[in-house]
């Protein structure tokens, strides 16, 4: 038990990779074995994170379960891991969604072994970002996560996958260039990449010149380098166009993880790095960030409303929902230290978790219908409710979570963001209500086109007859739905952890 507690984070982090290495030696032909193996091993990090959740003490200052190993001594970079309430929530989300995504992938029949290995590697990549307390390690995992996702889209995606995967890869990497340079700057300057130390040192540096420029200029440039990298990942309008393509072309489970976790990496970057490292710059440019967030909320909703492709519609909804996260961050940057800022951040972080649940659920449900009908065109569906009542009920439930219906999770976080942002960013908050209105429009459009209306007879008879969700598919949805309802009705179990972290950090 002591060993477990002392190495909990590295176990969570590297277990998927070890499992992936073992998987190399499993026979490729035994598809069933590969699937179950991948699913079962992915439950281990989940179990460990649940353990971590209960062992974690929200009221303690600073990072917990810290571990530090020598990694690259010459560069003063070490494998420094640790969690606080912020990263803990994201770790839980990641380890929860990965087994569900793997379970959702049981319908994959092509090169199962490679697929599952990539998924496990992806999990390590994502977890690394959340657990890293060393900037260089952060960056390494940030990039490591890209590679498996690239191949998942490129190899298992649908028709336009080459374009989408390339756009995804190049865009994200393009964004990280500035990030890498800025990280180098910090590392060279302070001879360390250790985050807790950098927080102090970098913020203490306010005067003088660096590289022939004033410190404030350098900080501003570095700030924007960080912001652009993370803004692309979130994505903030107008850096969002990679997202609909990547989400639409990715295989179902890929979209689940992409929307559920990968987008959160960007928002996490804002919270872990941008706000603590650049409080002044963040405050100065909060207005610009809020403008872009509002644009994401409004244009994301309109963009979604314009779609006739079910999956693309859901993809655009992510732009809309993540806009609220960024709006909360902008409000917090502007009003740092006040109750408004903390409420906005509570909302933003909870919205990250909530969007992870509902977006993963929505993508999965799109996948369920696509696997059966081989179309995502909303105009070719219609009136399917009587054929698949269970699916219909689950779809309505999940869409309502996405719509932000009170009583389900999305409402709590959106309400907190709106409450926090209203006093400091009144006009932007008011304009973002237009986005909230059209969230309703696109969600209802989807339900109307898929479930309601006259039945499209094509799906009612013969070989095209639509079949109800299988027990496996219901099992994928069940934990998501349970959490959606639980957070909607009793949010304080998770919000308490987030709130404590926010109180200490900001």
């Amino acid at each position, binding site marked *: 038990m002591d060993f477990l507690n002392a190495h909990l984070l590295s176990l969570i982090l590297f277990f998927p990779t070890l499992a992936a290495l073992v998987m190399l030696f499993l026979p490729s032909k035994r598809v069933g074995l590969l699937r179950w193996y991948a699913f079962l091993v992915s439950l281990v990090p989940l179990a460990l994170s649940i353990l971590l959740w209960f062992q974690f003490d929200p009221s303690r200052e600073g990072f917990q379960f810290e571990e530090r190993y020598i990694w690259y001594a010459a560069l003063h970079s070490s494998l420094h891991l640790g969690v606080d309430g912020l990263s803990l929530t994201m770790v839980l989300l990641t380890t929860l969604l990965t087994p569900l995504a793997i379970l959702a992938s049981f319908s994959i029949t092509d090169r199962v072994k490679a697929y599952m290995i990539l998924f496990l590697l992806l999990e390590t990549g994502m977890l690394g970002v959340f657990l890293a307390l060393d900037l260089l390690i952060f960056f390494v995992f940030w990039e490591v996560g890209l590679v498996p996702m690239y191949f998942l889209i490129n190899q298992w995606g649908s028709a336009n996958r080459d374009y989408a995967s390339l*756009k995804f890869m*190049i*865009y994200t990497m393009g964004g990280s260039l500035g990030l890498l340079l800025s990280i180098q700057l910090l590392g060279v300057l302070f001879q360390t990449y250790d985050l807790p130390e950098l927080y102090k040192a970098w913020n203490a540096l306010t005067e003088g010149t660096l590289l022939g420029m004033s410190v404030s200029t350098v900080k501003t440039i570095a700030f924007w380098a960080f912001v652009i990298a993370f803004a692309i990942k979130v994505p903030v309008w*107008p850096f*969002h*166009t990679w997202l*609909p393509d990547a989400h639409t072309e990715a295989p179902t489970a890929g979209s689940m993880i992409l929307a559920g976790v990968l987008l959160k990496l960007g928002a996490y970057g804002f919270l872990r790095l941008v706000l603590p490292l650049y409080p002044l710059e963040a405050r100065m440019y909060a207005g610009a960030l809020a403008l872009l967030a509002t644009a994401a909320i409004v*244009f994301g909703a*309109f*963009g979604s*409303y*314009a*779609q006739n492709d079910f999956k693309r519609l859901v993809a655009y909804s992510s732009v809309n929902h993540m806009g609220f996260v960024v709006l909360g961050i902008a409000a917090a940057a502007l009003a740092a230290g006040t*109750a*408004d800022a*903390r*409420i906005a951040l*509570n909302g933003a972080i909870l919205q990250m978790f909530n969007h992870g649940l509902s977006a993963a659920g929505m993508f999965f449900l799109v996948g369920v219908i696509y696997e059966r009908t081989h179309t995502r065109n909303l105009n070719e569906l219609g*009136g399917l*409710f*009587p054929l698949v*009542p269970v699916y219909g*009920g689950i779809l*309505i439930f999940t869409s*309502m979570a996405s719509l932000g*219906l*009170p*009583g389900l999770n999305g*409402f*709590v976080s959106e*309400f*907190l963001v*709106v*409450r926090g942002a*209203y*006093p400091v960013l009144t006009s932007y*908050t*008011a304009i973002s*209500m*237009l986005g*909230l*209105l*059209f969230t*309703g*429009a696109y969600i*209802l*459009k989807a339900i*109307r086109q898929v*479930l*309601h*209306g*006259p*039945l499209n007879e094509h799906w009612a008879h013969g070989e095209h007859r639509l079949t109800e969700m299988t027990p496996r598919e219901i099992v994928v949805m069940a934990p998501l739905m349970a959490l959606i309802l639980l957070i909607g009705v009793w*949010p*304080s179990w998770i*919000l*308490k952890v987030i*709130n404590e972290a*926010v*109180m200490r950090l900001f």
Partner: protein
Amino acid sequence: MTTETILWLIPLPPLLAFFLIVLFTNRWRGLSHSLAIGAAFLSWLGSMAVFVRAVGTHELGRHPFTQSIPWLPTADTWLRIGVYLDPLGAAVLFFVAWTILMIFIYSVGYHNYGQPQGDHDVKGLPPHGATVKDAHGHAHKVPSVEPMYSRFFAFISLFAFGMYLLVVSDNLLTLFVGWEIMGLCSYLLIGFWYGKPSARDAAVKAFMTTRIGDVFMLLGIAFLYSATGSLSFATIFREDVLHTLASVPTPILGLSAAGLISLLLFIGTVGKSAQWPLHVWLPDAMEGPTPVSAMIHAATMVSAGVYAVIRMFPLLRLDAGTMSIVAFIGAFTALFAATIAVAQNDIKRVLAYSTISQLGYMIAAAGIGAYVAAAFHLITHAFFKALLFLGSGSVIHGMEHGVLHTGEHIDPQNMFNMGGLRKKMPITFWTFLIGGFALAGFPLVTAGFWSKDEILADAFGHGHLAVFLTLAVAAFLTAFYTMRQITLTFLGEPRTKAAEHAQETPWTMTLPLIVLAIFAVAYGWVGIPEHFPILGGVVPNWFHEFVGSTLSEMPEAAPFNWVPLLTSLLVSLGGLGLGWWVYRGVRTVEEDKFQIPVLKNKWYFDEAYTFLFVRPSYWFAEKVVYLALDKGLIDGVLHTIGRSAAVIGTALRTYIDKAIINETIGDGTAKVVKSSGAELRPIQSGRLQQYMVASLLAFLLITALLYYFLVLA
């Protein structure tokens, strides 16, 4: 159990019933409706218990029953949620509990429980009837049971949960939660027969229109919360908090913070209570099954909007600007909707517009500060309008029976296909008559008279003459279209074979009608003004005393005046009389002189909204945001960058790599080596003499150079 504990428990049974039906019992109709009705009964029981205790509590207005728990951590504080019961809440809870229970019982009969499965019924469409053989072997068409019977009870249970939650809430947040849950249920129930394109569209329309109000309301809640740090009524309505809110100015319309917050919250009500200009969803909502109409349009959802306004009255009244807006919207809606109702032929649509109009009354009453009158009309209206909707459902049900029996292809909801139903459906007729007269404000015996009269008296007494006149004209129109409806439906002779074969509905449907009819008459007696001629003071004006004590200072009852009373009598009796006189002999729709196109088409609001909002927003979404911005501009820039990178790369390769490095340096070097090799080849002849001569020459050359550099230099 303490009253607070009961309050916590009241909303729960219907919620539990919803989950049980959806998850487990949806295959068994009887079990499902037993669960739903049992749950509604438990909630009813709890409500009655707390109502009795509330009435018996001294100074409940000052010391309401309340209890709260921490729910949401917000920085250093917690947002608390809880239950709250003051006199207003108790009065509202009373009518909500009764109407909900009645509607649940009615639904059993309405959805043909106990009837056979339909011949061709499918889920998502109304039942079409079943063929049965009687003892003599004759085939009959009879009504068939609703194919989604259990689902209906699940949905209305969730709906009931939403309403109860809203009423017992001690804060705006859970009130909003209940509010939105009802919004969802109304969407699901209006679109209950989702196979019909009209129902599907009506459902979306209802949800979206009310959502417009809801986002404003959310903004108002956020504003109020940030301004006061609390959402609980007890805190918001404290004198000092109200005072602060009233004195903080805002940049919008010159309103104070209190004014702007109440305006934002009021826009939520405009959507939910279907006030102009967001009224368009309610008539279309008639696509849902009739008990739903009663539920949405009488007992719960639309009442919730008015309840919210009355609940927020202490805040609302702080700003005269907002009050005027509220009064205007209410009075205008009351008249506007009444004009449309005159020209409608669908029995339920008449009631729908009448509901909009009556809600306008309540809103106008709140706007002129007639707090008690607004609450009174809210409650009497809930009873008689629920009665009328259920009555119209009973009529339609009877007509459908006739339609199935005769095989006629007519619309069973069109009043011009009815006539003479009083003989066929006596219970429905008499109860509908009571409801209709209450709606028309028939003097003295009906509840509607007392509540409407109080509003008129208040408007007149406090000098709101414009509101008074508008409402008086609206009241005249109300009496007129009500009598038109009763005359066309029940009086005269049957206009169709189906109407001849209409049949009284089963007891599950008539019993709720009778119960509601009792309230539609008797509830008026609890609010007879003290100074009313003869009757005044015989029974105490309990309603005014009780509900009025909710406010920190008891509102003054308007002084008695003959002008509003006579107006009230005149418009009510005049309207009823004229309605009967005009329609007593009308046989066909062509003979109806009031089929005025502009009224029939509802002042063209649907068309205008489609043209102004619906189509432009889709155009904006698709053409501007998606195609022009995302696909055109943003992706265009990205693709340009991508293409330029490719162009630069190609250029580098063609002009630098290939031309300079490869051809000049790389290939060039090789060429020089190769050609010089070729040039030099002749000297490697293999002849020894030649090599000796070359060596000698080289030796001489080196010696000469060395001599030159070392000796001479």
